[in-house]
């Protein structure tokens, strides 16, 4: 039972994305295949060099860097959204991959869920 969790909120503005990340880590902890897709303003989650000190939050960059270690299969970034935010693959975290977001992608998963 493979799952794709989609995050379309920007980082730091709410806890929805962090809690979606916890969902992905939980699936991985129980050996369930899971990938994360970032689209819309959500692609900003994958930017390199984040510093969240000024908003007194933990940087999510470290959590995402650990995702492959915890068993999250892929960190996917929607190509349209990357274009809109001027992000090339070199601007993104090491394990992130730019991909096309559409039915061909979502059809590969048994279970697709958006972050809250």
């Amino acid at each position, binding site marked *: 039972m493979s799952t794709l969790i989609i995050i379309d909120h920007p980082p730091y503005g709410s806890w929805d994305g962090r809690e979606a990340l916890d*969902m992905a880590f*939980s699936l991985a902890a129980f050996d369930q295949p899971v990938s994360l897709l970032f689209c819309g303003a959500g692609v900003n989650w994958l930017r390199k060099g984040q510093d969240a000190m000024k908003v007194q939050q933990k940087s999510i960059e470290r959590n995402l860097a650990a995702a492959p270690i915890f068993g999250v299969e892929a960190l996917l970034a929607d190509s349209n959204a990357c274009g809109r935010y001027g992000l090339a693959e070199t601007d993104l975290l090491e394990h992130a991959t730019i991909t096309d977001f559409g039915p061909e992608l979502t059809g590969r998963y048994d279970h697709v869920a958006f972050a*809250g």
Partner: protein
Amino acid sequence: MSSSLPEQTKTPAPAGVFTLVITGAPYSSQAPQTALQFAHAVLAAGKRIDRVFLYGDGVHLASSLSTPPSDELNLSEAWSRFLTENAIPGVACIASALRRGLVDESEMQRYELSASNLRAPFEIGGLGEWVDSAASESRVLYFHKGG
């Protein structure tokens, strides 16, 4: 709605079992009320709900302290009655709940808090409960805040 669309008569849950995940808070969003109406429809259609999982802001639904005006629907009470009458487990995610000040007696003691406020029959549980449903034949539906 286009009149050419045929009415859907088959359940989208092949096994006839649904799991409802509510992430929108009562009174800030329509999510808990829409989910409750959907839940009634599921049972009326002879299908089953294996679990209701509260996540993120949805955990506020399990508060025993929400007291809306008497001429408004008390969503926490309505949900708790529905779960009790139909013997459906209601689980609030522990991490979401503790972050938002929703605790049962054992968490109250563990963190030496002054009160607990979890409404029966809701229980506090881990994301493993949701994983259990997601990995099963159950159809998992999410009720978000929208907008």
